[in-house]
């Protein structure tokens, strides 16, 4: 596939999406688009680590929240310019990602253990942010309303749609570029068989650290954008398990490891979520029941997500891909050393 063919369809879709605010001015619609794009961005971050590099994090809230708190606190407490704070927030989230990655990957945590330790970090951050006076405690933090472009605050929601689209588009290009680069090959090697990759001379620790740092930076940008849009943050929004789950489900529904997957997944999930709310309003949690059911169904019947389904339809193959029982033999001989390797 030539380079232009790899990028072209995605760019056309993004340009079309950018035209929506020109024709639609309803705030509910624009709200929905911005929120979905923020989730898509967080999910793109997860996809880089989980989809490309095979490390499943159950605690991406740790990065989303760190980005969001950094952006909010730098402005609210230190009067830093919003754009500078936004940039610093991305760097801070990436740093948090590097530290968590360094600690857990150095200890050789994989699979279930890595999922658990990320979950625990997010939960510790949540409890700390909820108790500390610096973060505003349970009352949360507000960013002062002062609508000026230099404050990253706009009178029209369309501006946020475009900024979110630009970030999602940039990440899409970045992810596509990575999958076609040497780094992407290393990611794939670590994902498919880490021991074999190491045996072939891949510095797996360095590769995984690159993945988690990039991943955390992207998800942190989603957090910073969230707080810039809503101008309010508390510990349960920033570090709550909801965002860890959103960031993880969207790529799996959309197509894990594919550059477009997280975006397709986020749009599908939130589209369905809004529909269920429309038809079953007043029943709390019903949209999440659908998310859970979709996650199970997707893994059962569409292991490559929506992207995989589209590809199969395109090729005229409707029968599900037969999943090869990947390296069952290798796994059964070393399950006990999973965590201690």
């Amino acid at each position, binding site marked *: 596939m030539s380079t232009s063919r790899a990028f072209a369809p995605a760019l056309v879709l993004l340009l079309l999406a950018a035209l929506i605010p020109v024709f639609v001015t309803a705030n509910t619609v624009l709200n929905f688009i911005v929120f979905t794009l923020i989730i898509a961005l967080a999910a793109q971050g997860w996809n880089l680590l989980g989809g490309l590099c*095979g490390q499943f994090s159950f605690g991406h809230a740790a990065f989303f929240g760190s980005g969001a708190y950094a952006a909010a606190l730098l402005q609210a407490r230190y009067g830093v310019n919003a754009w500078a704070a936004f940039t610093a927030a991305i760097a801070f989230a990436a740093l948090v990602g590097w530290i968590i990655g360094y600690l857990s990957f150095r200890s050789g945590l994989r699979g279930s*253990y890595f999922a*658990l330790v990320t979950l*625990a970090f997010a939960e*510790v951050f949540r409890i700390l942010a909820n108790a500390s006076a610096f973060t505003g405690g349970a009352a949360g933090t507000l960013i002062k309303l002062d609508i000026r472009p230099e404050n990253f605050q706009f009178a029209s929601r369309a501006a946020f749609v475009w900024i979110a689209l630009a970030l999602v588009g940039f990440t899409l290009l970045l992810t596509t570029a990575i999958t076609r680069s040497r780094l992407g090959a290393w990611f794939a090697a670590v994902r498919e068989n880490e021991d074999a990759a190491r045996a072939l001379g891949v510095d797996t620790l360095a590769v995984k650290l690159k993945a988690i740092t990039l991943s955390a930076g992207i998800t942190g940008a989603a957090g910073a954008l969230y707080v810039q849009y809503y101008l309010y943050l508390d510990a349960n929004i920033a570090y709550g398990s909801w965002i860890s789950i959103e960031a993880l489900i969207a790529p799996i529904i959309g197509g894990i490891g594919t550059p477009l997957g997280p975006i397709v997944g986020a749009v599908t999930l939130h589209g369905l979520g809004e529909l269920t709310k429309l038809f079953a309003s007043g029943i709390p949690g019903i949209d999440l029941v659908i998310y859970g059911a979709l996650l199970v169904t997707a893994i059962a019947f569409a292991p490559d997500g929506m992207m995989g389904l589209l590809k199969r339809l395109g090729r005229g193959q409707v029968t599900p891909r037969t999943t090869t029982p990947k390296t069952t033999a290798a796994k059964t001989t070393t399950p006990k050393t999973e965590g201690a390797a």
Partner: protein
Amino acid sequence: MFAPDIILAAVLNGLMTGSVYALIALGLTLVYGVLHIINFAHGATLTAAMFAVYVAHAVFKLDPYIALFIVTPLFFGLGYGVQRFVIGPASHGEDRNILLVTLGLSILIENAMLAIFRSDTRSIDVPYAFSSIDLGFTFLALPRVLAFGVALLVALLLGLLLTRTDTGKAIRAVAREKTGAALAGIDVAHIYAVTFGLGAACVAIAACLLMPTFYVTPRAGNAFVLVAFTIVVLGGMGSIPGALLGALFIGVVESLCGLFFGESLGQIGIFLIFILVLLVRPTGLFGARA
């Protein structure tokens, strides 16, 4: 400083809390030991069991301790069915898929509970809720003492089941080497499902023991299960004695942290232990032997 008898009372209380943690952790560690995955639906299963006990009491006027004999087999059956007919077929034999399927189930169950019961806090009213036993220096709540006794009994029975029965031997064989077990004629899918059923039965018993003194919300199970994760990691994933001792230890730590630092920091202590153990010795205290 606190007087010795206050500290002793805190330790006893911690042991009793720990015994309920032990039941929850036993279910988790058993499933991990056999399937080598963490069952993320464990917390939601506990919540569902607590609601089952609540409904049994509110609708059928069943005492939680009598409901135990209905809810436990019911949850064994549910656990068996879910693993056999949902998790097993859906995950195509890949570990990371099992992880995600259990996560999906937990989201589904938790929010179904939210849709049905709403987010109200519910508790049941039993006449003995405030009965206590006078030890001279402190009072122990009767339901908690009962919970302690039943939890230890269940742990003992589970141990006997695993070591003395054919099913138990088959479970241990599958845990050790599933391909070999399959070659020896053991139905691995059946054993997986039995293990899952046992895990669900453990939390069902825990729910019956909790409900006389605790309340239930659609998220009630999560707090317990995060503690259970810590216990299982501390005791060594898959180790039954590790889960038992780890649970009693964590119960006491939580109780003492609560006494010295206040409730909210008691929770932090548990998570810090969790992260430290994961980073420093992920095989846990008893896991290395496995």
